[in-house]
C-alpha cells in the first residue's frame, strides 16, 4: 500500500461518485441534441437523485431484508471497484483487490444481488428482468474475463495495475492484433453490462422491452436513488476500465500533486469522451431483439478468445 495508491484510491472514489451522474447527464444531453431536442442539462441526474433522497423510504409488502440491502451491496461493490482500479494512478489503493478476477467478481456480485432482489419482489416484471439480466451477464462475464486476460498475458500478471503499468511503458502494444481484438470485445461487453443500446434501452419505460429497468421497478425513494447512482458509477467504471486499459496516457505515475491533478483531469476527459461517443452511437442503433443478444455476446466472446490466441501466437515473436 503506497502513498500513490492511497491518494489515487481516494481521488477515484470522490471523482467517480461525484461525476458519474454528470456522465449520465452528458450521455443524455448528447443524445437529446443529436435528436434535435433541447435536453435537460447535464445536472439533471443529480437533481433527480436529490429529489429521490428526500422522499420517505417505501418498500413493497412481503419483501425480505434482501430487497433492502441490495441497493447498498450494489453501491458498495461498485464503489470498491471504482476505488481500487487503476484509473488516476498506476498504483492501487488495495493491491490484491485490483486483480482482474476480483474486480470482475465485485461487479458481478452487485448485479447478482440486484437480480435476487428483483425476484424477491415476486412481481412478474421483476422476475422477467432478473432472468434477462442473468442471461446477459452469464454471457458477458466470461468475455470480460477473457478480454482482460488477453492483455494480462503480455504483462505477466492479472493485476490491473501491473497491466496498466506495462502498457504505459510500452505503448506500441495497444495496436497489436491482441490489443485491438480485446478492445473490440471489451467495448461490446461494456455496452451489454451497463445496459445501453443495442442490448438494453436505458430510456425505455415499456415493460416488455426493459431489462435493467424491469428489475428496479419496485424501488422508490432513497433506495432508487442509490441504485441510480450505482448504475451511473458502473457506467463510469466500465468506461474507465476501457480507457485505462487501452489508452493509459496521462495516468499519474508519481504522487506529486500536479501529476495527480493531471491524471484526474485526463481520466475525466477520457471517460467523458467515451460516454459522448457511446451516446452518439446509440442515436444510430436500434435495440436488438432479445434473442439476438446472445449472438452479439457470442461474437464478442469469440473476439476475446481470438485476442488471447493472438497474444499467444502472434505476440511470441
Amino acid at each position, binding site marked *: 500500500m503506497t502513498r500513490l495508491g492511497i491518494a489515487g484510491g481516494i481521488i477515484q472514489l470522490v471523482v467517480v461518485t461525484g461525476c458519474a451522474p454528470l456522465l449520465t447527464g452528458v450521455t443524455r444531453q448528447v443524445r437529446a441534441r443529436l435528436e434535435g431536442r433541447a435536453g435537460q442539462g447535464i445536472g439533471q441526474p443529480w437533481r433527480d437523485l436529490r429529489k429521490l433522497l428526500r422522499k420517505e423510504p417505501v418498500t413493497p409488502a412481503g419483501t425480505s431484508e434482501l430487497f433492502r440491502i441490495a441497493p447498498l451491496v450494489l453501491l458498495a461493490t461498485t464503489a470498491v471497484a471504482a476505488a481500487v482500479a487503476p484509473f488516476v494512478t498506476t498504483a492501487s489503493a488495495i493491491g490484491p483487490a485490483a486483480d482482474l478476477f476480483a474486480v470482475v467478481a465485485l461487479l458481478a456480485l452487485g448485479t447478482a444481488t440486484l437480480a435476487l432482489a428483483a425476484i424477491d419482489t415476486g412481481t412478474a416484471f421483476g422476475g422477467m428482468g432478473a432472468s434477462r439480466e442473468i442471461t446477459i451477464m452469464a454471457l458477458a462475464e466470461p468475455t470480460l474475463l477473457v478480454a482482460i486476460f488477453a492483455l494480462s498475458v503480455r504483462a505477466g500478471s492479472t493485476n490491473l495495475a501491473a497491466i496498466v503499468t506495462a502498457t504505459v511503458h510500452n505503448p*506500441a502494444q495497444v*495496436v*497489436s*492484433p*491482441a490489443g*485491438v*481484438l480485446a478492445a*473490440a470485445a471489451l467495448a461490446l461487453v461494456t455496452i451489454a453490462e451497463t445496459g445501453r443500446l443495442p442490448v438494453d434501452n436505458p430510456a425505455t419505460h415499456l415493460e416488455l422491452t426493459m431489462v435493467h429497468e424491469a428489475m428496479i421497478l419496485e424501488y422508490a425513494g432513497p433506495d432508487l436513488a442509490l441504485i441510480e447512482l450505482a448504475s451511473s458509477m458502473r457506467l463510469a467504471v466500465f468506461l474507465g476500465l476501457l480507457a485505462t486499459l487501452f489508452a493509459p496516457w496521462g495516468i499519474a505515475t508519481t504522487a506529486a500533486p500536479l501529476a495527480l491533478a493531471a491524471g484526474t483531469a485526463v481520466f475525466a476527459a477520457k471517460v467523458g469522451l467515451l460516454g459522448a461517443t457511446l451516446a452518439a452511437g446509440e442515436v444510430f442503433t436500434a435495440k436488438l431483439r432479445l434473442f439476438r443478444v*446472445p*449472438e452479439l455476446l*457470442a*461474437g464478442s*466472446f*469469440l*473476439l476475446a*478468445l*481470438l485476442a488471447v*490466441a*493472438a497474444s*499467444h*501466437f*502472434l*505476440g*511470441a*515473436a
Partner: protein
Amino acid sequence: MTGYTQSLDLACGVLLVTAVVIVWRRRLTAIIRTFAVQGTALAAIAGILAVHARDARLGVVAGGLLALRAVALPWLLRRALASSGSRPSEQETRPQVNVTASLLAVAALTLVAYAVSRPLAALDPSPASEAIPVGIAVTLAGFFVLVTRRRAVSQLAGFLLMDNGITATGLLTTASTGLLIEAGVSLDVLLAVVVLRVLADRMRDAFGGTDLDDLRELRD
C-alpha cells in the same frame, strides 16, 4: 518488435477479424463489403512480405491479389446478388447452424488451427511462420461456412473465405511460390466464381430460388 512484425501481425489480425465478421453477419451485402476488406488485408500481407524480402515478384503478386480479391471478386459477388432480385429472403444467408453456435464453432476451429500448426511454426521460427495459425483458422472458418450455408451465393462466400485462408497460409509458409503458380491459382478462383455465378443464375431460372436443399429431390 519491429515495424515489419507489427504490420504483419496487424494485417493477419484484420484477416482473422474479417473472417469472424463474415460468419457473424446475416446480410450478404455486408458480407461482400467485408470481403473487400479481407482482400485488402491479404494483399497487404503479400506487400509487407515483398517489402521485407525485397522481392519484386512478390510485389506483383500483391498487386494482383489487390485487384482480384479486393475489387474483382467482390464486384462479381455483388453482381450475382443484384441479379437475384431484391427479395429479402435472397439477401440473407440463412445458415443451417444458428449464428451463436457458428461463432462458438469458429472459436473452437481457431484453437484447432493453433494446435495443428505449432509444429509448422516451430520448423522455422520467424514472424511470418508464427502467423500461420491465422491462415489455417481462416481456411477452417471458410470450410465451416461452406458446409453450413444453404444459399448458393453464401456458399460462394464460404468458398472464397476458404481460398483467402489457403492463399494467406501459402504466402506465410513459402514467400517464394512462383509467379506463374500464383497467377494460375488466382485465375482458377476467378473461373470458379464465374462458373458458380452462372450456375446460380440457372438454378434461379429453373427453380425460382437458390436454396440448395430444394435440389435434393430428382425431377424430370
